[in-house]
């Protein structure tokens, strides 16, 4: 097991932890943190991938940079929605669909 594989495996473990968190947590901030952990886990796998040849591969590097921007955008939108909901009525429970 090479160093690069170890990083990949750790990234996947982190991904699983984030996935569990995002499904199980009910607090919005916890869910968002879990989503970000998942994102970072994917970036970790990508960065490890970049280093598994002789030369560093810039393509995963660029993918991570793009991914970070998208993650920032997604997180900001979720936070904005959460804050809007809080403004409309403090303490929110989503109504079940029916």
């Amino acid at each position, binding site marked *: *097991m090479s160093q690069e*594989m170890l990083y*990949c*495996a750790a990234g*996947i*473990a982190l*991904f*699983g932890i984030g*996935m*569990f968190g995002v*499904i*199980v*947590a*009910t*607090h*919005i*901030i*916890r*869910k968002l943190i879990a989503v970000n952990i998942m994102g970072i886990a994917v970036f970790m796998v990508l960065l490890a*991938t970049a280093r*598994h*040849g*002789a*030369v*560093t*591969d*810039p*393509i995963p*590097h*660029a*993918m991570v*940079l*793009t991914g*970070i*921007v*998208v993650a*920032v*955008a*997604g997180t*900001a*939108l979720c*936070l*904005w929605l*959460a*804050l*809007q*909901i*809080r*403004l409309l009525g*403090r*303490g*929110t*429970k*989503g109504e*079940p*669909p029916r």
Partner: protein
Amino acid sequence: MFLKLEFKENQATSGELSTTTRVLLAIAIVALGTSLIYAILSAGKAPPDLAAQVAEKLDLSGVGNPVTAVLLNFRSYDTLLEVAVLLVVAVAIMPPRLSSSAGKRFLFVNDTHNPHVPDPILLNLLKWLVPLAILLGGYLLWTGAYSPGGAFQAAAVIAGAGVALSLGGRHKFAWEISGVRLASSLGLLVFVTVAATNAFITGTTLQYPIDHASTLILLVETFTTVSIATILLLLFAQLKSLADPPGEMHQ
């Protein structure tokens, strides 16, 4: 699962899912993770990657930094859409434009009653820090062509200067002026314009004429930096103003 969304301070999260469901979920995720790790370990041989191709074509890209070459030349379409993704969130969060805002300046000194007494040390520090951060942003933008750096890094540092300024408490930004909308979409506009111009010059959208590639890339990067910095600062400022609305300052 996602049916219960809470947003309360000082509250221990109460589970929505039963213990059995959680255990089953944990088992499913562990199984997925294990099979993924097994798949990685079983993929023995080093697969081909694109590092060699990027290195080979780097001279034709107009920049010396392979990551910048990928972001702004080889895969510039990704970057174009990425800036558009930022615009999505910016438009969603932007406050509505007010007709009273005509002639208002973007950055102004907050002279209304302010419950926070601005910290004089912080304000003096900001006088140095903000120009320095903008200078650093410019450097990062420039150096991105040859070494680590580039539009996003530069924009993040510049937006950081804005964040510091707004945390100082003395300055405010007017997000409702039309200039904000222009600044947020400027990067995208220049990007699309350059892409279209390229189509006329070289016959292919997004293909830079080799002699002018570095100039055009710097042009695109500069305006993208302006847009990204504006949008990042906007996101921070809007979220902050929602988190503690002016009516109910904490304390």
